[in-house]
């Protein structure tokens, strides 16, 4: 038990900020922005402190805070982090102020409500990553839906209502499968051990000690229920269509794309539940999931290349990245999982930053169509060079952040008995296609002859410069020194991989 509730602080600070923003008078926009940004920055500071204080020699959950919630059913408010969730918490805390800053000036109406909803969303997502109680996880998981749907539905483009409804229905449809999964796991655990609990750590411990053994049929059923929920949320092909619509209709500024859509809640759930709790079923399902992952990678990359709307292009890029993440995860060895977790962070950083760039371009031209641009380098060299760093990072150029994680996860996949080199070779095709679609986008916007009406486009404004430089710096730093990212997660990842190894050895 930690004396200082640092995790609760990170979770609830943005929500408090949201209430603060709503309490301010409608007219005082400056104060609203200041309060929102203040709350987000405080949460970021707390998250940095968390990373510093994190004990990297420990595999299990740290900074545990626990209060009984519904004691008679073993439901508790328990939050904690391990090496995997640590980075996702940090990522959320890092991206929230970026998203707030990106929205300044780009939201024409009801900015107060917008700021409040973004902050609520940040709270909900951090909650998902820190929840150690399954029910609490589910509550936060669902809680993220409402703000995201409202953000798209109120501030989005022409098809926003349809997109918001589609988003909500799709992800809710996926997530309701989680509920029977959670109930089933809870009841089976109670039958086996007599302990009524929803605590992941407790269930994990009983699984590892052998006090709680699932028979293969039940384990596969539970695995399937959780998998459907997270695969839709992630999203993996063929459940991805909500995501591309949502990105396309979300406001151009990119704030919501960053805040709500690219964070890897679904992928995190896959690691936390499917891989960690059901190693046998994961090993059983790995080849099939590998197929889905490879289809996601190649298909989404190919479709991305066909797009002319830059946000759609990036949305498909995001789906393709998720294919890599899932592939690495279901390699079920330490390299694969570590690479997958690191790639979650890296992909969110680079794709998120590129969404910001698209927002900036769209603000200059009032269009997100590739064909409307060209030769922007001449007019906006600073924007062009920063974008180049981000694009190369997303492609996975050695020395930038995408490379290390992609390399690790592909290496893991190659060595995995369930996935193997055939899948990996196909996935590598996806790496090449990533270069194709991203460089295609870059060429169409920044290279070539500049159309006359674009020649006078203003270059980056100070706010945009700060945003992009921050992102680009992180991309470079993580690329040059990936151990920063891999170090703290090593113990937790090894522990998960050992669970699978044990199972494979015992078979």
């Amino acid at each position: 038990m930690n004396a200082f509730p640092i995790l609760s602080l990170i979770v609830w600070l943005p929500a408090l900020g949201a209430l603060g923003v709503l309490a301010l008078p409608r007219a005082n926009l400056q104060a609203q922005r200041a309060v929102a940004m203040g709350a987000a920055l405080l949460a970021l500071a707390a998250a940095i402190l968390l990373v510093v204080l994190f004990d990297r020699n420990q595999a299990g959950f740290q900074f545990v805070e626990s209060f009984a919630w519904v004691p008679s059913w073993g439901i508790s408010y328990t939050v904690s982090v391990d090496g995997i969730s640590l980075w996702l918490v940090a990522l959320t805390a890092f991206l929230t102020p970026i998203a707030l800053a990106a929205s300044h000036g780009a939201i024409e109406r009801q900015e107060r409500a917008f700021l409040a909803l973004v902050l609520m969303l940040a709270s909900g997502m951090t909650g998902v990553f820190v929840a150690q109680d399954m029910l609490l996880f589910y509550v936060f998981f669902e809680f993220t839906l409402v703000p995201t749907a409202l953000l798209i539905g109120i501030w989005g483009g022409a098809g926003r209502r349809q997109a918001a409804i589609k988003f909500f229905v799709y992800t809710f449809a996926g997530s309701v499968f989680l509920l029977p999964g959670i109930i089933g796991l809870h009841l089976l655990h109670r039958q086996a051990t007599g302990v009524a609990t929803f605590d992941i750590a407790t269930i994990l411990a009983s699984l590892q000690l052998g006090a709680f053994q699932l028979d293969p049929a039940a384990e596969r059923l539970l695995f399937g229920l959780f998998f459907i929920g997270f695969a839709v949320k992630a999203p993996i092909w063929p459940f991805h269509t909500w995501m591309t619509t949502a990105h396309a209709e979300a406001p151009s500024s990119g704030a919501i794309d960053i805040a709500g859509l690219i964070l890897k809640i679904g992928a995190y759930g896959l690691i936390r539940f499917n891989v960690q709790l059901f190693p046998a079923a994961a090993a059983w399902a790995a080849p099939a999931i590998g197929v889905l992952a490879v289809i996601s990678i190649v298909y989404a990359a190919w479709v991305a290349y066909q797009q002319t709307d830059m946000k759609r292009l990036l949305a498909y890029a995001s789906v393709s990245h998720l294919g890599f993440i899932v592939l690495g995860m279901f390699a079920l060895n330490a390299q694969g999982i570590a690479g997958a977790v690191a790639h979650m962070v890296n992909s969110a950083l680079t794709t998120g930053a590129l969404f910001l760039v698209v927002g900036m371009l769209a603000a200059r031209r009032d269009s997100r169509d590739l064909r409307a641009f060209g030769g922007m380098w001449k007019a906006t060299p600073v924007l062009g060079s920063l974008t180049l760093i981000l694009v190369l990072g997303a492609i996975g150029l050695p020395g930038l952040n995408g490379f290390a994680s992609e390399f690790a996860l592909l290496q893991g996949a190659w060595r995995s008995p369930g996935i193997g080199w055939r899948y990996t070779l196909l996935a590598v095709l996806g790496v090449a296609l990533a270069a194709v679609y991203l460089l295609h986008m870059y060429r169409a916007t920044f290279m070539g002859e500049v159309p006359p009406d674009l020649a006078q486009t203003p270059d980056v404004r100070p706010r945009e410069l700060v945003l992009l430089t921050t992102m680009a710096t992180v991309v470079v730093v993580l690329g040059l020194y990936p151990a920063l990212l891999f170090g703290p997660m090593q113990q937790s990842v090894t522990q998960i991989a050992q669970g699978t190894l044990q199972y494979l050895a015992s078979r």
Partner: protein
Amino acid sequence: MSFQLTDIPRILPELMLLLLALLVVGSDVLTRWGRDPKARAERAREAGQLTAIGLGLVFVVALIQSRLLFTVPDPTGGPLDVLLTLGRNLQAGGPGGPALLGAFATDEFTMVARLTFVGAALLTSLLAMGYRLTANPGEFYSLLIFSTLGMSLMAAATEFILAYLALELSSIALYVLAGYFRESDRSPEAGLKYFLFGSLSSAIFLYGISLVYGFVASENQKAGGTPIIATLFSEVGRLATGEAASNPLLTLGMLFIVAGLGYKISVVPFHSWAPDVYQGAPPPVTAFLSTASKTAGFLLLYRLLTTAFPGAVGAPRLETFSGWTSLLAILALVTVIVANLAALPQTNARRLLAYSSIGHAGFVLLAILLWTSSSQVDRDFGTMALFYYLITYTITNVGSFGVLAVVSGAIGNDDLSDMNGMWRRNLPLTLMMTILILSLAGIPPLAGFWAKFFVFMAGYQAGAVPLVAIAVVMTVVSLYYYLRFLKAMWMNPAPATTPIVTPRIANAAIVASTILVVLLGIVPNLIWGALSGTTAFAGR
């Protein structure tokens, strides 16, 4: 088994309701009956205020009596002795003791049910006060109270005749209330429809009872005695064990009883009256009809089935018929499917919520299925899940129908399109409706989520896994039509910018239910503890 004077505190809340109903009619006679609108409004307000205050008083008395909050200490000789003695005497009639005359149980089951009904009636009376009532307000409010009285008796009944009388008392009052707006097109139709279906279902219920009587008499005769008819649930339950439990006469009687009560709780295929009635009845009446009346039906059904037919529980399997749990499982299956699909194309908000409330009845049935388990812990969980669902459902639906009452009071209609862009016209009301709708959809952390969670868990434990799976899928379908509310209110453009004014008194009811929904969502323990007593209901 005779009635004594000391038993009066045990039925004090019911007596108070009876007196209150008479008082409301009586005092209405004595007020000024002007024809001008001002005098009419005055008269309506007086009747409403008397009802609200009276129901509030009954609620407090029932709450103290139930010992849910506190137990009054012994008098200590201090200045508060009068109050303490009063409280002690009141609580002497609290939960416990044998059923009065074997027919009226005063266990915690009754106490909690009573609080639910009186609470719902109180909120409904507040909604009604905010709604334009033109004619005969005294009758309106007293019928509301009579109906509450009937429901309270229904939940407490442990005997067939009392159960039937209570059912009739609550229903007849509601028939009149549903047709109360004589000048509107739909209200008389709703009243008549409700009356026809209701009286038919009462007849079916009664026929089922008579078959059960026949069974009891023949069993008594077989045992060598005289063919005496026993009317207590527990007496039937005692005889209907072992071989006798599968007696076709008994099974047929049980089928008729479930069908008769099926109308009251509006499960498919006995639901066809509900959409028309919910849409046509005066909006505050709909709020009451869809919540308290349904809750009463469920509680009577639960007590009746578990006490009178314990031998015919069976298992909730869909393939073979093996007792009333499999019957209810089939009903639950068709109910969740038909209701949720039928709700999709609706355009009228109240009609849509009517189908949603039919769908909810299907979910509630899942909790009852857990009686099939032989473990007492499981059965207790089922009972608590049932109560939890019914209470949160009552609170949420009173609130959401209350919002529709406000909308229809302000605009004159309550189609979904009338709620377009409502957030520009009344933001607080829209926010509250959003919370209530999300709770109905089962989004955490609102009360409706826990209710769904508990009944799914109950269904799962009862072994009805395929049924739970279908219910889960139907939850997604239901989300789609709930989102249509949110879409209309938040995303569609408003046809006018004139604000929708919420009458202050109706606002109180809606705010109260919204706060409860949020509170019970964040701390579900708040009533879960209180419900633990309901599991030991009398007459089992």
